[in-house]
């Protein structure tokens, strides 16, 4: 008996982005422990932005050198789509970090409570506020989440998927509950997010267990092979794959697993919502696409009807209920639900065009989401952020630039040509039509029309309605937010007008297993 074993050969280069971000997160924890309070923020910022940039550099070099393959003993599949998704997540994280780092909007500091453990309204809290302390723990938490997100879409087995899911979600649960203002709502959002998130991940896990029972392995490639061989035990396969879908569809915010979205989007600090809305959706859809295309590719015809129902329901609920919202963040949350519906079309398409279309869509969506929430965070009244739709009235007159940018993002969300949203929509719809889902495309078009109504309503409010009631003001933010918003706006325009380079990148890229 040979107790020696061959050490697995691990390609660290391919995992560089993940390792850098997670390593930086660990470093961040140490900084919290050892660095003096007054320096922490600056050090954390350097670590965060530095690690994100290094990771992004890694993704870019891996992409340009076509350095792809399975990593970490087949548990990661870092292929073309995977690298693209990691890139999108990292860029979203960079822009999101800029919003998180913003201190000029709120006179008291950044968007997070000075000490999350202090009771809201307690003397402790006001003292911390007075001292101008910041909760710098958000940075390692943020980096852990980003690390989870980087793994999530490239996970090549269900265990890695589950672990990545938790790594990316757990910090977000916490961060969602740490808003500086309206702490009660923030904590409630955290609780709901956590309970429902844990509930859904239990489904995902149990589904994985059943699939393991079916195929004898949790690796995607083995499962799809097993499906091809048809070993019987179809009950395990169907229930298992549906439970996995429940977990993933929860994360992407598809109906009927969407109900956490408005509550959490509204309750969480807006800067975090921006990051979460963009990056979580990207990571979750990346994982969903991979599971659907790779692990369950052979099950397409059993899953297609289910996904048709979900897609239709999601699009309609997202758009129709969105019409009735009066809080801008909730409205945008419903918009994100609608977009999840559109994106499921790309999953249903089940063809290379569907994959590349969805990826493009995700890239476009990430920037518009960051942009919209970024701008929402700028509009304030006396008590903090002004989230009521009515308070946006007359914004066009007060600060045309911000209103103009907001209009741009909204039009992109609506899918108006020459914005990124249109290109993405077109790509996904075309793929779905080709994949035989023409009726869903028509439904998607109708849903887009309904959605257009509430996007346009905001534009009308900003440009054509006289402001009434209390004065709201648009805060001029620091360089962080300015740069972040500029990136988002520029990308939105470029992806609408000149999408070809990105499309080239996505052309002929497909999952490996």
């Amino acid at each position, binding site marked *: 008996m040979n107790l020696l074993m061959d050490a697995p050969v691990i390609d660290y280069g391919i995992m560089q982005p993940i390792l850098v971000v997670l390593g930086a997160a660990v470093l961040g924890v140490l900084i919290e422990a050892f660095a003096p309070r007054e320096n922490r923020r600056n050090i954390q910022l350097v670590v965060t932005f530095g690690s994100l940039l290094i990771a992004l550099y890694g993704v870019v070099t891996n992409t340009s050198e076509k350095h792809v393959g399975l990593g970490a003993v087949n548990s990661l599949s870092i292929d073309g789509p995977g690298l693209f998704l990691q890139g999108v997540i990292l860029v979203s994280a960079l822009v999101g970090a800029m919003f998180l780092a913003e201190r000029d909007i709120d006179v008291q500091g950044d968007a997070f409570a000075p000490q999350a453990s202090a009771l809201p309204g307690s003397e402790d809290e006001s003292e911390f506020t007075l001292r101008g302390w910041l909760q710098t723990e958000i940075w390692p938490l943020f980096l852990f989440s980003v690390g989870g997100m980087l793994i999530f879409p490239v996970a090549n087995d269900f265990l890695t998927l589950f672990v990545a899911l938790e790594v990316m979600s757990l910090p977000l649960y916490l961060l969602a509950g740490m808003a500086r203002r309206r702490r009660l709502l923030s904590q409630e959002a955290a609780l709901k997010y956590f309970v*429902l998130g844990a509930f859904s991940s239990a*489904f995902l896990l149990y589904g994985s267990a059943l699939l393991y029972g079916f195929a004898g392995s949790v690796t995607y490639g083995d499962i799809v092979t097993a499906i091809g061989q048809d070993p019987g035990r179809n009950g395990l396969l169907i229930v298992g794959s549906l439970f996995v879908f*429940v977990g993933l569809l929860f994360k992407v915010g598809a109906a009927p697993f969407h109900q956490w979205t408005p509550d959490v989007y509204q309750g969480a600090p807006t800067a975090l919502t921006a990051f979460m809305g963009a990056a979580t959706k990207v990571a979750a859809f990346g994982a969903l696409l991979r599971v659907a295309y790779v692990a369950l590719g052979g099950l397409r015809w*059993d899953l297609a*009807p289910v996904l048709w129902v979900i897609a239709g329901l999601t699009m309609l*609920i997202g758009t129709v209920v969105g019409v009735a919202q009066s809080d801008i963040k909730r409205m945008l949350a419903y918009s994100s639900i609608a977009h999840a519906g559109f994106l499921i079309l790309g999953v249903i398409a089940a063809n290379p065009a569907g994959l590349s279309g969805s990826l493009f869509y995700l890239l476009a969506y990430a920037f518009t989401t960051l942009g919209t929430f970024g701008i929402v965070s700028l509009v304030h009244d006396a008590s903090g952020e002004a989230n009521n739709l009515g308070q946006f009235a007359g914004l066009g007159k007060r600060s045309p630039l911000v209103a103009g940018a907001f209009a741009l993002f909204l039009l992109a969300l609506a899918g108006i040509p020459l914005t990124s949203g249109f290109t993405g929509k077109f790509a996904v719809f075309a793929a779905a039509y080709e994949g035989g889902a023409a009726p869903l495309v028509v439904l998607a078009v109708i849903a887009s029309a309904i959605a257009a*109504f509430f996007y346009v309503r905001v534009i009308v409010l900003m440009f054509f309605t006289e402001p009434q009631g209390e004065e709201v003001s648009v805060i001029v933010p620091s360089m962080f937010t300015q740069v972040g918003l500029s990136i988002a706006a520029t990308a939105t325009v470029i992806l609408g007008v000149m999408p070809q380079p990105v499309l080239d990148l996505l052309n002929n890229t497909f999952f490996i297993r």
Partner: protein
Amino acid sequence: MHSLLIGLPLLGAAVLLLGGKRTNAWGHYFATAMSIGSFLVGVASFSEMFGLPAEERSIEWTLTEWISVGSFQVPIAFQLDQLSIAFVLLITGVGSLIHVYSIGYMEHDANRRKFFSYLNLFVSAMIVLVLANNYLLLYVGWEGVGLASYLLIGFWQHKPSAATAAKKAFVVNRVGDIGLSLAVMLMFAFFGTVTFAGVNEAADNASEQTATWIGLALLLAACGKSAQFPLQSWLLDAMEGPTPVSALIHAATMVTAGVYLIARSNEIYNIAPTAQLAVVIIGSITYLMGAVIGTAKDDIKKGLAGSTMSQIGLMILAVGLGPIGYVFAIFHLLTHGFFKAGMFLGAGSVMHGMHDDVNMRHYGALRTAMKITYATFGLGFLAIIGIPPFAGFWSKDEIIKVAFSYSPLVGVLTLVGAGVTAFYMTRMMAMTFFGTARWDDDVHPHESPKTMTIPMIILAFGSAFGGMLLLFVADIESWLEPVVGFEHAHHAPDNAILIPVTLAVVAAGAALGWIQYATRDVPRVAPADVSFLTTAARADLYGDAVNEAVFMRPGQYLTRSLVYVDNKVVDGAVNGTAGFVGLVASQLRRLQTGYARSYALMMVLGALVILATAVLVRMS
């Protein structure tokens, strides 16, 4: 050179309209000169044509390509033949006289320049109408004269009645224009051409059905322009225009365009007996209607308008009789042009002297105050009732003769009409120039200036001798033969007793009128207790009432309802959809209870539903 016929008056209109106030001083002279110039060109053309053998008299010339799409090719091209030169001379001749007359008549009107520009516009459009070598270009002239008529009826547009009358004339004419449009479309659809020559050629082997449809469509057009039943109602209102306009457009020329159109399309009608019959019926009805209306009008112009309607009805009746009728219809049209224009000018002269009062009950015994007017009007009177040897006798007598040869019934109708005509014309004559003076003290009747009387005198000559000139000197029967195909073989048999009978009927009518209105006192206010027929005639035989009840009121109701429907139903459907979405949204929103456990429940239910879906799909 022939294009100058159109060009000169068009130039006149353009110079006056574009020149604006700068031309105020000399505009009316310029316009008159243009009209006279056009007349001279017409005379020159005529004399040139006169010297040529019959088959070479018709000439055509093309100005430019107009419309060419696929096989639909229409040039701007003209045709001057025996028929059109007759009209040209009438239009420019009478037109020039009326220009001259208007110099005096409109002297004090601030917008005299505009008036003359419209007159010039009318003359040029009317000449386009009669010179066009195809139906589409004819259409341009057709609506062009309609436009001029609209502008001139509504010339005093600050009077609401004038504006309304103008609009009414145009709209009713447009109804007729549907007919002309359809006729042109039918021609192209079935014959592939819309030129007179092409249609005539195609008519040789056209089916009777096609010809009938075209014939009926053209009749509708003629009804509109010539104020024939059932589109007659606009003509009486058109008297809101200045009197020279009534004389030129609504008596001598434009309203006879329908007769021209039917005569011009004789080859179509010749193979469509049904359409011919319809023409005769329409003509007959209008002939009698107009006459009856004429008996009851106290407004001298409206009386004359009724008479015009009636006389054109007679012409239409005549053109419906086929080849034997065309010549006499045109003949009557020309003589009518003289005497009716003359009488209208006379009426204008009377009004001029009577402070623009048109009510004959306020006239009486004017023969002494306005001698020239009296004499010229009297000659017109003799001509219209058909006393030999005046103009009307020759043309009217021939039509009655032909009508009898066509059908005794139509013959008797024409005879009755002649009697009624004699009655109402005598009435008019008597009420205006005879009896006792009934005018107010502040009115001082006086003769009109020379610019007005000279045209009247010239036209009176026409009323007196025009018939004989045309019949014996110009030999109108053989002159028109190449165009309308006068059939000597079927020439109506001379009916020896018809002339005396006709004269007797005319005399009876005239006598009745004389007894009624010259020998008895005419009340200054129209008596109210009159027979039903009189009441009806005063109300234009309820033509307007019917229009109002059948078209106007329901139309107004319809438009009002549609405005409502458009706002509430059509637009409402769209807004309703939006509202529905909103309603669904507010209901669905309630699912968002805020309780995490209910969200979890929804997730479990969702999981079960998709599980069920998958199982169902699997099983099916």
